[in-house]
């Protein structure tokens, strides 16, 4: 009976008053970390398997995973990541954008290892990253995003929620539902604040509506801490992953807030 009571407790958590979003926040930098960010290595490799299975969506692309800030003030400089099992420990070097290439390690799989970062749990979120090389600057390819969603969902790295919430989420949201239906609401992020996104395929150009920007525009200061867009809200968009009228080669062109209009 412990689990149901925990579930009820967790269900009430969203009712708790949240800190105002605009409060000044001190930077959080933790050297040796108790309660660190950790993720299942086996689960991450399921995402790698999904990437390989559905590679036709983005045949030229490779798969990486990227760490993103989840809480205000988290220091994303100097993040260290490793695969840790009972006997195995494999450092995963991060590139400047805090992304890394997944590596296969049979022993880590056998030992049901975890990925551990030197940051506290819930301070960072994760995303699969699938990028076809050679795209014009300020664009993403729709097929890459479709594959990113599938690999990201299968790898269970979407956000660093407590295990019980992840378990509940996985019961409610399957990869197929999230990545193939209009209300799937898989969040993507750009590197800079966005004012708009335009779908471009051949001669066709069409902007995404406001409802597909900023996590739908529906977050409040109270709900925001439960969204992994908490500190990236102005960089957040949904893509029409489900819409076959826009093929995989469709580009999403970003119009950033800090760019001067042509």
């Amino acid at each position, binding site marked *: 009976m412990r689990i149901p009571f925990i579930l009820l407790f967790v269900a009430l958590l969203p009712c708790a008053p949240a800190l105002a979003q605009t409060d000044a926040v001190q930077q959080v930098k933790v050297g040796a970390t108790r309660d660190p960010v950790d993720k299942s290595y086996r689960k991450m490799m399921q995402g790698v398997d999904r990437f390989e299975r559905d590679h036709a969506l983005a045949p030229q692309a490779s798969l990486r995973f990227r760490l993103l800030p989840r809480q205000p003030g988290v220091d994303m400089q100097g993040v260290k990541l490793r695969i840790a099992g009972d006997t195995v420990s494999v450092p995963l070097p991060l590139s400047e954008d805090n992304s890394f290439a997944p590596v296969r390690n049979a022993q880590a799989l056998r030992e049901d290892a975890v990925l551990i970062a030197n940051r506290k749990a819930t301070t960072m979120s994760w995303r699969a990253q699938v990028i076809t090389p050679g795209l014009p600057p300020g664009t993403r390819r729709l097929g890459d995003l479709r594959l990113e969603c599938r690999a990201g969902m299968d790898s269970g790295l979407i956000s660093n929620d407590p295990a019980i919430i992840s378990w509940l989420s996985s019961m409610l949201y399957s990869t197929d539902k999230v990545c193939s239906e209009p209300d799937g609401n898989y969040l993507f992020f750009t590197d800079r604040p966005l004012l708009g996104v335009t779908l471009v395929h051949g001669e066709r150009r069409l902007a995404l509506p406001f409802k597909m920007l900023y996590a739908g525009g529906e977050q409040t200061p109270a*709900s925001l801490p439960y969204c992994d867009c908490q500190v990236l809200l102005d960089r957040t968009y949904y893509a029409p992953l489900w819409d076959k009228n826009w093929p995989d080669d469709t580009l999403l062109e970003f119009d950033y807030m800090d760019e001067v209009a042509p």
Partner: protein
Amino acid sequence: MKWLMFPLLLSLAACSGTRALQASKSVPQATLEQTVQVGSSTREQVRAALGESTSIRFDSGDEVWMYTYPAAGAGGEYLILFGPDGVVKKVRRGAVYQLPK
């Protein structure tokens, strides 16, 4: 455990805390173009001339307001970006992708 799932889901739904968007206001495009001047129009001026519409404010102090306007085929959206000083920094307009109902 099934008996617990229903109240649990109800509870999650009740507490999710997201807000209903303020409905967007439809304004003729010509009015929008005349009213909103990049670099000089303020939030107060735009509100007084066009009324409230869908909006969102970010931690950076930037704010985005959205008005709709009638357009051939798909509907049109007019986005206004206000800087932290309350002055229009940038606008964006165009026909938009229609989400399935």
